[in-house]
């Protein structure tokens, strides 16, 4: 019975509030550095970070671009690979039982530990980074997609069966559509992991990207530079996340939650 207020209703608020939230977070960070007089070599002030960024905005943005590209490529690859795996898993209990432990095994390997391996196999190019992104983020996609498809109401599954739908139709016309909100939840979890994957990939044998910058900053004990890179990563994550939210709103108008 609540009437929607400006804060919840207007589209402007949907943009302004997150920005206020971020601003508050940054203010808090700044306060922490002042109140606890945290040394800048541990945690620089937001101001330092901004100054550092404007030292060389072009260079940092181009590194961000590199990481962004890897992130998106790996993420898309994870979707292309993960969703069909989820389909197979939901389709066959036997397959699920055979494949899940394998997926879990791959997923539970600490990715930092295998970064050099990937470089040895795939060289210094984009590929080991993209594969790292893929490895980081395919699991949430698989598991959310599978779980979403499994939770399709029996009522609707029976409807499809009664219409003599093929298994493929059952999956594409019903289960996949039904699972969409949960798949998007998976995407939202995966996208941050994808960003981190790109960074980890860039720790080994890279000559560009934000991961390289972070690694690099160690060579000059430049904590502020590292944090500038980390902030850019955060911004990238946040932008990608809200990009997914937007996409969800556009694609799934029927799933707009009620509270």
């Amino acid at each position, binding site marked *: 019975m609540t009437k929607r207020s400006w804060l919840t209703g207007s589209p402007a608020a949907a943009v302004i509030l997150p920005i206020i939230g971020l601003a508050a977070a940054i203010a808090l960070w700044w306060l922490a550095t002042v109140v606890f007089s945290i040394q800048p070599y541990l945690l620089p002030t937001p101001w330092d970070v901004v100054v550092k960024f404007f030292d060389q905005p072009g260079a940092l943005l181009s590194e961000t671009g590199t990481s962004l590209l890897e992130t998106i490529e790996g993420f898309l690859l994870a979707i292309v690979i993960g969703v069909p795996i989820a389909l197979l898993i939901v389709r066959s209990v036997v397959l699920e039982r055979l494949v899940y432990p394998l997926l879990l095994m791959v997923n539970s390997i600490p990715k930092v530990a295998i970064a050099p391996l990937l470089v040895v196999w795939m060289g210094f190019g984009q590929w080991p980074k993209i594969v790292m992104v893929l490895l980081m983020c395919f699991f949430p996609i698989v598991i959310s997609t599978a779980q979403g498809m499994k939770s399709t109401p029996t*009522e*609707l599954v*029976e*409807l*499809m*069966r*009664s*219409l*003599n*739908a093929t298994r493929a*139709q059952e999956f594409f*016309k*019903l289960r996949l*559509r039904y699972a969409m909100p949960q798949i998007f939840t998976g995407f939202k979890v995966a996208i941050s992991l994808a960003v981190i994957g790109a960074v980890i990939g860039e720790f080994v044998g890279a000559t560009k990207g934000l991961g390289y910058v972070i690694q690099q900053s160690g060579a000059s004990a430049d904590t502020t530079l590292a944090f500038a890179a980390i902030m850019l990563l955060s911004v990238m994550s946040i932008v990608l996340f809200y990009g997914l939210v937007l996409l969800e709103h556009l694609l*799934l108008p*029927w*799933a707009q939650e009620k509270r």
Partner: protein
Amino acid sequence: MIRLDGVGQVFDGREGRVTALEKIDLHVRGGEFVTLIGRSGCGKSTLLRLIAGLLPPTSGSVQVAEEPVTGPRRDVSFMFQRPALLPWRSVLSNVMLPVEIDKGSDRGKAAYRDRAHQLLELVGLQGFERRLPHELSGGMQQRVSLCRSLIRDPQVMLMDEPFSALDALTRTELSEELQRIKMELATTIVFVTHSIEEAVVLADRVVVLTPRPGRMREVVDIDIPRPRSLAQNAYVTEVAKISARLHALLSEKDSEDRR
């Protein structure tokens, strides 16, 4: 057309077994309109699901068109007790779902689209074609589900309380339409209802089930000439007489079977 021999159905639940159906022997001829009445929970929906091939019988055999039923069939349509509409599809595209699913359509898609519009108009939903299910009232949803079950002109129609959420007028109109379809296309119809009058007016034969476990108490032939109407008609007295008898049959078992 439909033949059940010694069919029984037992559900295994956490809290013990429930015998839903027992020793059902039923033969429905092609083009026949059979209505099924019985107290709530006696196994009517279960019986339809057995015929539709959505559930394998615990005992006995089910045949449709001389073939044993092993799964849903293309020429059988099932209208469920609940509307079971896909929430992301508009009214029109929910109605078109069976056409989409059956690729080997004999008519063109455009022809079906016209038919869908025609059906929606028939049930009084013109102007709602592009709405989503959650914007409809209960009865409107049920009518969409009805249109969906009619769109492909099926050979056999299984209908589980199709008019339960409709007002008297709409009921009258639609029951007339249903009779017209049965006569024109020689459709075989098995129809569950709680309205005894409806059962009498629509049926060639009324099957009365006993309360849990559902057994066949009696099969009553109705010889009133068609078309018949739920509204006032020439055979009021006959309808009333049979209705009274069915009422008695339903009550009778109540005292007899409740051990």
